[in-house]
Protein backbone atom coordinates (compact mmCIF):
# COMPACT_ATOMS: atom_id res chain seq x y z
CA UNK A 1 0.00 0.00 0.00
CA UNK A 2 1.33 3.38 -0.81
CA UNK A 3 1.15 6.29 1.55
CA UNK A 4 -2.04 7.82 0.16
CA UNK A 5 -3.88 4.51 0.34
CA UNK A 6 -2.73 3.98 3.86
CA UNK A 7 -3.79 7.46 4.81
CA UNK A 8 -7.23 7.00 3.28
CA UNK A 9 -7.66 3.57 4.82
CA UNK A 10 -6.52 4.76 8.20
CA UNK A 11 -8.78 7.75 8.06
CA UNK A 12 -11.78 5.68 7.07
CA UNK A 13 -11.20 3.08 9.73
CA UNK A 14 -10.13 5.18 12.63
CA UNK A 15 -11.74 8.56 12.34
CA UNK A 16 -14.42 7.80 14.90
CA UNK A 17 -13.90 6.85 18.49
CA UNK A 18 -15.18 3.42 19.35
CA UNK A 19 -13.36 1.79 16.47
CA UNK A 20 -12.25 -0.87 18.87
CA UNK A 21 -15.58 -2.51 18.25
CA UNK A 22 -14.04 -3.63 14.96
CA UNK A 23 -11.16 -5.34 16.68
CA UNK A 24 -10.75 -9.08 16.41
CA UNK A 25 -11.11 -9.90 20.03
CA UNK A 26 -11.92 -8.08 23.18
CA UNK A 27 -10.12 -10.05 25.83
CA UNK A 28 -11.81 -9.64 29.13
CA UNK A 29 -11.23 -10.88 32.60
CA UNK A 30 -13.84 -11.18 35.27
CA UNK A 31 -12.88 -11.40 38.89
CA UNK A 32 -15.44 -12.70 41.29
CA UNK A 33 -14.73 -10.98 44.58
CA UNK A 34 -17.14 -13.31 46.30
CA UNK A 35 -14.79 -16.15 45.46
CA UNK A 36 -11.43 -14.50 45.91
CA UNK A 37 -9.73 -15.59 49.10
CA UNK A 38 -6.66 -13.40 48.66
CA UNK A 39 -4.32 -16.39 48.70
CA UNK A 40 -1.81 -14.88 46.30
CA UNK A 41 -1.51 -17.83 43.92
CA UNK A 42 -2.16 -15.49 40.99
CA UNK A 43 0.67 -13.23 42.10
CA UNK A 44 3.22 -16.02 42.05
CA UNK A 45 1.82 -17.50 38.86
CA UNK A 46 2.31 -14.16 37.19
CA UNK A 47 5.81 -13.78 38.54
CA UNK A 48 6.78 -17.19 37.23
CA UNK A 49 5.17 -16.73 33.85
CA UNK A 50 6.29 -13.22 33.08
CA UNK A 51 9.87 -13.15 34.35
CA UNK A 52 8.98 -10.59 36.95
CA UNK A 53 12.19 -9.86 38.77
CA UNK A 54 13.00 -10.53 42.37
CA UNK A 55 13.23 -7.01 43.68
CA UNK A 56 14.91 -7.59 46.99
CA UNK A 57 14.17 -6.30 50.45
CA UNK A 58 15.99 -2.99 50.14
CA UNK A 59 14.19 -2.00 46.97
CA UNK A 60 10.86 -3.11 48.38
CA UNK A 61 11.52 -0.89 51.35
CA UNK A 62 11.85 1.96 48.90
CA UNK A 63 8.43 1.02 47.59
CA UNK A 64 9.53 -0.49 44.30
CA UNK A 65 7.44 -3.61 44.28
CA UNK A 66 6.87 -5.46 41.03
CA UNK A 67 3.65 -7.40 40.85
CA UNK A 68 1.69 -7.20 37.66
CA UNK A 69 -1.20 -8.53 39.65
CA UNK A 70 -1.37 -7.61 43.28
CA UNK A 71 -3.85 -8.28 46.04
CA UNK A 72 -5.17 -5.11 47.56
CA UNK A 73 -6.72 -5.38 50.96
CA UNK A 74 -9.30 -3.18 52.58
CA UNK A 75 -10.48 -3.36 56.14
CA UNK A 76 -13.96 -2.38 57.13
CA UNK A 77 -15.34 -1.89 60.59
CA UNK A 78 -13.62 -2.37 63.89
CA UNK A 79 -13.18 -5.32 66.20
CA UNK A 80 -15.16 -7.49 66.66
CA UNK A 81 -16.98 -6.61 63.44
CA UNK A 82 -13.85 -6.04 61.40
CA UNK A 83 -13.97 -7.34 57.87
CA UNK A 84 -11.17 -7.72 55.40
CA UNK A 85 -11.85 -7.58 51.71
CA UNK A 86 -9.39 -8.51 49.01
CA UNK A 87 -9.32 -7.30 45.47
CA UNK A 88 -6.82 -8.46 42.87
CA UNK A 89 -5.61 -5.43 40.97
CA UNK A 90 -4.02 -5.76 37.57
CA UNK A 91 -3.87 -3.83 34.33
CA UNK A 92 -7.48 -3.22 33.40
CA UNK A 93 -6.74 -3.09 29.66
CA UNK A 94 -9.02 -0.08 29.42
CA UNK A 95 -10.62 0.69 26.10
CA UNK A 96 -10.21 4.37 26.90
CA UNK A 97 -6.89 4.01 28.58
CA UNK A 98 -5.37 7.23 29.87
CA UNK A 99 -1.92 5.67 29.79
CA UNK A 100 -2.03 5.13 26.04
CA UNK A 101 -2.54 8.71 25.02
CA UNK A 102 0.26 10.03 27.16
CA UNK A 103 3.06 7.85 25.87
CA UNK A 104 5.15 10.10 23.63
CA UNK A 105 6.59 7.22 21.64
CA UNK A 106 3.51 4.98 21.32
CA UNK A 107 5.11 2.27 23.39
CA UNK A 108 1.71 1.59 24.81
CA UNK A 109 -1.38 1.52 22.64
CA UNK A 110 -4.49 -0.53 22.00
CA UNK A 111 -3.99 -3.46 19.71
CA UNK A 112 -6.22 -5.60 17.58
CA UNK A 113 -6.99 -7.93 20.43
CA UNK A 114 -8.32 -5.13 22.54
CA UNK A 115 -5.23 -5.35 24.68
CA UNK A 116 -3.40 -2.48 26.19
CA UNK A 117 0.08 -3.18 24.94
CA UNK A 118 3.40 -2.30 26.44
CA UNK A 119 6.31 -2.59 24.05
CA UNK A 120 9.27 -2.66 26.38
CA UNK A 121 11.97 -1.93 23.89
CA UNK A 122 10.16 1.11 22.57
CA UNK A 123 9.77 2.58 26.04
CA UNK A 124 11.97 5.53 26.89
CA UNK A 125 10.92 5.62 30.51
CA UNK A 126 9.09 8.89 31.01
CA UNK A 127 6.86 7.02 33.49
CA UNK A 128 3.94 9.22 32.52
CA UNK A 129 1.78 6.20 31.85
CA UNK A 130 2.21 5.12 35.46
CA UNK A 131 1.04 8.53 36.59
CA UNK A 132 -1.88 8.52 34.23
CA UNK A 133 -3.00 5.05 35.25
CA UNK A 134 -5.58 5.43 38.00
CA UNK A 135 -5.20 1.76 38.91
CA UNK A 136 -1.51 2.05 39.71
CA UNK A 137 -0.70 -1.14 37.89
CA UNK A 138 2.28 -0.04 35.87
CA UNK A 139 5.66 -0.92 37.27
CA UNK A 140 8.96 0.64 36.41
CA UNK A 141 12.34 -1.03 36.18
CA UNK A 142 14.41 1.20 38.38
CA UNK A 143 17.54 -0.75 37.59
CA UNK A 144 18.70 -3.88 35.84
CA UNK A 145 17.39 -6.83 37.75
CA UNK A 146 19.48 -9.78 38.60
CA UNK A 147 18.75 -13.43 39.20
CA UNK A 148 21.11 -15.36 41.38
CA UNK A 149 22.36 -18.26 39.29
CA UNK A 150 20.82 -20.68 38.49
CA UNK A 151 17.45 -19.00 39.13
CA UNK A 152 17.67 -17.44 35.68
CA UNK A 153 17.19 -20.90 34.18
CA UNK A 154 13.54 -20.63 35.09
CA UNK A 155 12.98 -17.53 32.93
CA UNK A 156 10.25 -17.92 30.37
CA UNK A 157 11.79 -17.75 26.89
CA UNK A 158 8.55 -16.38 25.47
CA UNK A 159 8.78 -13.25 27.57
CA UNK A 160 11.64 -10.83 27.37
CA UNK A 161 13.55 -9.68 30.41
CA UNK A 162 13.07 -5.97 30.79
CA UNK A 163 16.05 -3.70 31.12
CA UNK A 164 16.42 -0.72 33.37
CA UNK A 165 14.44 2.38 32.56
CA UNK A 166 11.48 0.54 31.08
CA UNK A 167 7.88 0.42 32.19
CA UNK A 168 6.14 -2.93 32.39
CA UNK A 169 2.74 -4.25 33.27
CA UNK A 170 0.27 -7.07 32.86
CA UNK A 171 -0.11 -8.21 29.27
CA UNK A 172 -2.96 -10.66 29.81
CA UNK A 173 -0.18 -13.16 29.07
CA UNK A 174 0.04 -12.13 25.44
CA UNK A 175 2.56 -14.92 24.84
CA UNK A 176 -0.14 -17.43 25.67
CA UNK A 177 -2.63 -15.70 23.40
CA UNK A 178 -0.03 -15.68 20.66
CA UNK A 179 0.67 -19.35 21.16
CA UNK A 180 -3.01 -20.23 21.23
CA UNK A 181 -3.50 -18.38 17.96
CA UNK A 182 -0.57 -20.26 16.53
CA UNK A 183 -2.13 -23.56 17.52
CA UNK A 184 -5.49 -22.45 16.16
CA UNK A 185 -3.87 -21.69 12.84
CA UNK A 186 -2.25 -25.11 12.87
CA UNK A 187 -5.72 -26.58 13.28
CA UNK A 188 -7.03 -24.40 10.50
CA UNK A 189 -9.17 -22.28 12.76
CA UNK A 190 -9.37 -18.55 12.25
CA UNK A 191 -10.63 -17.71 15.67
CA UNK A 192 -9.84 -18.96 19.09
CA UNK A 193 -12.43 -20.86 21.01
CA UNK A 194 -13.48 -20.04 24.50
CA UNK A 195 -11.04 -21.59 26.90
CA UNK A 196 -8.13 -21.77 24.47
CA UNK A 197 -6.27 -19.12 26.39
CA UNK A 198 -5.86 -18.66 30.08
CA UNK A 199 -3.42 -16.20 31.53
CA UNK A 200 -1.23 -17.62 34.27
CA UNK A 201 -3.23 -15.98 37.06
CA UNK A 202 -6.54 -17.30 35.79
CA UNK A 203 -5.07 -20.71 35.26
CA UNK A 204 -3.78 -20.92 38.81
CA UNK A 205 -6.63 -19.38 40.79
CA UNK A 206 -7.59 -22.02 43.37
CA UNK A 207 -11.07 -20.63 43.93
CA UNK A 208 -11.74 -20.11 40.24
CA UNK A 209 -12.47 -16.48 40.96
CA UNK A 210 -10.80 -15.38 37.75
CA UNK A 211 -12.25 -15.94 34.33
CA UNK A 212 -10.83 -15.00 30.99
CA UNK A 213 -12.20 -14.91 27.50
CA UNK A 214 -13.44 -12.90 24.57
CA UNK A 215 -16.41 -10.75 25.37
CA UNK A 216 -17.34 -10.51 21.71
CA UNK A 217 -18.21 -14.16 21.83
CA UNK A 218 -21.60 -14.16 23.49
CA UNK A 219 -21.34 -17.85 24.23
CA UNK A 220 -18.17 -17.47 26.21
CA UNK A 221 -17.98 -17.98 29.91
CA UNK A 222 -16.61 -14.55 30.45
CA UNK A 223 -19.48 -12.98 28.54
CA UNK A 224 -21.97 -14.62 30.82
CA UNK A 225 -19.91 -13.74 33.83
CA UNK A 226 -19.59 -10.06 32.95
CA UNK A 227 -23.31 -9.77 32.43
CA UNK A 228 -23.93 -10.97 35.91
CA UNK A 229 -25.88 -8.35 37.84
CA UNK A 230 -23.03 -8.21 40.30
CA UNK A 231 -20.64 -6.94 37.62
CA UNK A 232 -18.96 -3.58 38.08
CA UNK A 233 -15.82 -1.75 37.13
CA UNK A 234 -13.44 -0.36 39.67
CA UNK A 235 -13.37 3.45 39.47
CA UNK A 236 -16.13 3.34 36.92
CA UNK A 237 -16.64 7.10 37.34
CA UNK A 238 -13.38 7.70 35.49
CA UNK A 239 -14.86 6.20 32.33
CA UNK A 240 -11.76 4.32 31.37
CA UNK A 241 -13.86 1.41 30.09
CA UNK A 242 -11.81 -1.35 31.67
CA UNK A 243 -11.67 -4.87 30.27
CA UNK A 244 -11.44 -6.28 33.74
CA UNK A 245 -14.85 -6.73 35.25
CA UNK A 246 -15.27 -7.33 38.94
CA UNK A 247 -18.20 -9.16 40.42
CA UNK A 248 -19.37 -7.68 43.67
CA UNK A 249 -18.77 -9.47 46.89
CA UNK A 250 -21.98 -10.73 48.38
CA UNK A 251 -22.51 -9.61 51.93
CA UNK A 252 -25.08 -11.55 53.78
CA UNK A 253 -26.11 -10.73 57.25
CA UNK A 254 -27.03 -13.28 59.75
CA UNK A 255 -30.79 -13.53 59.79
Amino acid at each position, binding site marked *: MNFIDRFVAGWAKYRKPGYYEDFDYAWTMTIDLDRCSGCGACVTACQAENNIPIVGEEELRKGREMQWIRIERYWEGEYPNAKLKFIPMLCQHCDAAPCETVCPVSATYH*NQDGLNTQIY*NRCIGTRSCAVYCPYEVRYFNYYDHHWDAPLEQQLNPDV*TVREKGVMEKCTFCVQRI*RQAKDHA*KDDGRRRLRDGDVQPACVQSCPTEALNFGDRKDSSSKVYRSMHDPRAYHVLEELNTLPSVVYLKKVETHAD
Partner: protein
Amino acid sequence: MSVSIIHTLRVLRPAATIVLVTLLGLIAGFYANAAFFPGTQPEQPINFSHRIHAGDNEIPCMYCHIQARRSISAGVPSVNKCMGCHNEIAVDRPQIRLLANYWDAKEPIPWVKVHDLPDFVHFTHKRHIAAGIECQTCHGPVEKMDVVSREAPLKMGLCLACHRKNEVEHGTDCWTCHK
Protein backbone atom coordinates in the same frame (compact mmCIF):
# COMPACT_ATOMS: atom_id res chain seq x y z
CA MET B 1 36.94 49.34 9.97
CA SER B 2 35.55 46.26 8.32
CA VAL B 3 32.08 44.88 8.74
CA SER B 4 32.30 41.99 6.28
CA ILE B 5 32.19 38.47 7.68
CA ILE B 6 34.32 37.14 4.87
CA HIS B 7 37.59 37.97 6.48
CA THR B 8 36.64 36.23 9.68
CA LEU B 9 35.44 33.22 7.79
CA ARG B 10 38.81 33.05 6.10
CA VAL B 11 40.55 33.14 9.44
CA LEU B 12 38.37 30.37 10.73
CA ARG B 13 38.83 28.16 7.70
CA PRO B 14 41.71 25.97 8.98
CA ALA B 15 39.90 25.25 12.22
CA ALA B 16 36.68 24.52 10.39
CA THR B 17 38.52 22.23 7.99
CA ILE B 18 39.93 20.23 10.84
CA VAL B 19 36.52 19.85 12.41
CA LEU B 20 35.04 18.90 9.07
CA VAL B 21 37.76 16.35 8.35
CA THR B 22 37.32 14.83 11.78
CA LEU B 23 33.59 14.50 11.24
CA LEU B 24 34.08 13.02 7.81
CA GLY B 25 36.60 10.61 9.30
CA LEU B 26 34.07 9.63 11.94
CA ILE B 27 31.46 8.82 9.34
CA ALA B 28 33.97 7.07 7.13
CA GLY B 29 35.30 5.01 10.01
CA PHE B 30 31.81 4.04 11.05
CA TYR B 31 30.84 2.88 7.62
CA ALA B 32 34.18 1.26 6.98
CA ASN B 33 33.67 -0.89 10.01
CA ALA B 34 30.12 -1.69 9.01
CA ALA B 35 31.07 -2.43 5.40
CA PHE B 36 34.30 -4.36 5.78
CA PHE B 37 34.02 -5.90 9.21
CA PRO B 38 30.30 -6.43 9.41
CA GLY B 39 30.49 -9.47 11.63
CA THR B 40 27.89 -11.05 9.40
CA GLN B 41 30.20 -13.88 8.48
CA PRO B 42 31.65 -15.22 11.69
CA GLU B 43 34.15 -18.00 11.76
CA GLN B 44 32.64 -21.35 12.66
CA PRO B 45 34.23 -24.18 14.65
CA ILE B 46 33.91 -26.40 11.59
CA ASN B 47 34.07 -25.05 8.06
CA PHE B 48 30.69 -26.36 7.17
CA SER B 49 29.73 -25.52 3.59
CA HIS B 50 26.08 -24.99 2.82
CA ARG B 51 27.05 -24.85 -0.84
CA ILE B 52 28.16 -28.46 -0.81
CA HIS B 53 25.22 -29.71 1.22
CA ALA B 54 22.29 -27.61 0.11
CA GLY B 55 23.62 -26.47 -3.24
CA ASP B 56 25.61 -29.26 -4.87
CA ASN B 57 23.95 -32.17 -3.13
CA GLU B 58 20.55 -30.53 -3.00
CA ILE B 59 19.77 -31.63 0.51
CA PRO B 60 16.56 -29.81 1.49
CA CYS B 61 16.93 -27.20 4.22
CA MET B 62 14.49 -28.97 6.47
CA TYR B 63 16.33 -32.25 6.30
CA CYS B 64 18.76 -30.86 8.84
CA HIS B 65 16.89 -27.85 10.20
CA ILE B 66 14.13 -30.23 10.99
CA GLN B 67 12.24 -28.07 13.43
CA ALA B 68 11.75 -25.04 11.26
CA ARG B 69 8.39 -26.39 10.19
CA ARG B 70 6.99 -26.89 13.65
CA SER B 71 8.86 -24.70 16.08
CA ILE B 72 9.76 -21.12 16.57
CA SER B 73 13.41 -21.95 16.07
CA ALA B 74 14.74 -23.80 13.08
CA GLY B 75 17.29 -25.57 15.20
CA VAL B 76 20.69 -26.83 14.23
CA PRO B 77 21.13 -30.54 13.67
CA SER B 78 22.56 -32.57 16.50
CA VAL B 79 26.01 -34.03 16.11
CA ASN B 80 24.24 -37.34 15.93
CA LYS B 81 22.48 -36.21 12.79
CA CYS B 82 25.70 -35.11 11.12
CA MET B 83 27.31 -38.41 11.95
CA GLY B 84 24.34 -40.19 10.45
CA CYS B 85 25.75 -39.42 7.04
CA HIS B 86 29.38 -38.78 7.84
CA ASN B 87 29.90 -42.23 9.27
CA GLU B 88 29.98 -43.20 5.64
CA ILE B 89 30.61 -40.12 3.59
CA ALA B 90 33.88 -38.27 3.26
CA VAL B 91 35.14 -39.61 6.54
CA ASP B 92 38.76 -38.78 5.97
CA ARG B 93 38.43 -35.13 5.12
CA PRO B 94 40.00 -32.95 7.80
CA GLN B 95 36.80 -31.05 8.56
CA ILE B 96 34.85 -34.27 8.92
CA ARG B 97 37.54 -35.52 11.27
CA LEU B 98 36.93 -32.44 13.35
CA LEU B 99 33.29 -33.41 13.44
CA ALA B 100 34.16 -36.97 14.38
CA ASN B 101 36.30 -35.64 17.22
CA TYR B 102 33.32 -33.81 18.63
CA TRP B 103 31.26 -36.95 18.26
CA ASP B 104 33.81 -39.14 19.94
CA ALA B 105 34.14 -36.72 22.83
CA LYS B 106 30.32 -36.53 22.96
CA GLU B 107 30.68 -32.80 22.93
CA PRO B 108 28.33 -30.43 21.21
CA ILE B 109 29.63 -28.16 18.48
CA PRO B 110 29.68 -24.50 19.49
CA TRP B 111 28.30 -23.06 16.28
CA VAL B 112 28.30 -19.28 16.08
CA LYS B 113 24.96 -17.66 15.47
CA VAL B 114 24.82 -15.79 12.19
CA HIS B 115 21.20 -14.79 12.20
CA ASP B 116 20.49 -13.46 15.62
CA LEU B 117 17.42 -11.54 16.66
CA PRO B 118 17.28 -9.50 19.83
CA ASP B 119 15.74 -11.06 22.92
CA PHE B 120 12.61 -8.93 22.67
CA VAL B 121 11.63 -10.20 19.24
CA HIS B 122 9.24 -13.08 18.83
CA PHE B 123 9.98 -14.65 15.49
CA THR B 124 8.57 -18.03 14.61
CA HIS B 125 9.96 -20.05 11.75
CA LYS B 126 6.90 -22.23 11.77
CA ARG B 127 4.44 -19.51 10.77
CA HIS B 128 6.68 -18.09 8.11
CA ILE B 129 7.22 -21.47 6.52
CA ALA B 130 3.52 -22.22 6.78
CA ALA B 131 2.91 -18.97 4.92
CA GLY B 132 5.17 -20.18 2.15
CA ILE B 133 8.08 -17.82 2.72
CA GLU B 134 11.28 -19.16 1.22
CA CYS B 135 14.18 -19.58 3.60
CA GLN B 136 16.23 -17.48 1.21
CA THR B 137 13.98 -14.47 1.65
CA CYS B 138 15.61 -13.70 4.95
CA HIS B 139 18.69 -15.92 4.94
CA GLY B 140 19.87 -15.11 1.44
CA PRO B 141 21.11 -17.69 -1.06
CA VAL B 142 22.58 -19.97 1.59
CA GLU B 143 22.88 -22.80 -0.88
CA LYS B 144 25.50 -20.77 -2.70
CA MET B 145 27.52 -19.88 0.37
CA ASP B 146 30.57 -21.74 1.52
CA VAL B 147 30.51 -19.74 4.69
CA VAL B 148 27.14 -18.46 5.76
CA SER B 149 26.86 -14.73 6.01
CA ARG B 150 23.98 -12.57 7.04
CA GLU B 151 22.59 -10.91 3.96
CA ALA B 152 19.50 -9.20 5.33
CA PRO B 153 19.91 -6.51 7.99
CA LEU B 154 17.26 -8.24 10.16
CA LYS B 155 16.02 -4.87 11.38
CA MET B 156 12.49 -3.92 12.14
CA GLY B 157 12.12 -2.09 8.85
CA LEU B 158 12.76 -5.31 6.93
CA CYS B 159 10.08 -7.21 8.82
CA LEU B 160 7.61 -4.38 8.46
CA ALA B 161 8.19 -3.93 4.75
CA CYS B 162 7.50 -7.60 4.12
CA HIS B 163 4.50 -7.66 6.44
CA ARG B 164 3.08 -4.62 4.71
CA LYS B 165 3.76 -5.94 1.24
CA ASN B 166 2.09 -9.25 1.95
CA GLU B 167 -0.69 -7.61 3.94
CA VAL B 168 -0.10 -9.93 6.85
CA GLU B 169 -3.00 -10.02 9.23
CA HIS B 170 -2.09 -7.65 12.06
CA GLY B 171 1.35 -7.64 10.56
CA THR B 172 2.06 -4.18 11.91
CA ASP B 173 0.69 -4.81 15.37
CA CYS B 174 3.63 -4.46 17.76
CA TRP B 175 2.66 -7.51 19.79
CA THR B 176 2.78 -9.69 16.72
CA CYS B 177 6.55 -9.59 16.85
CA HIS B 178 7.55 -8.00 20.13
CA LYS B 179 7.40 -9.85 23.37
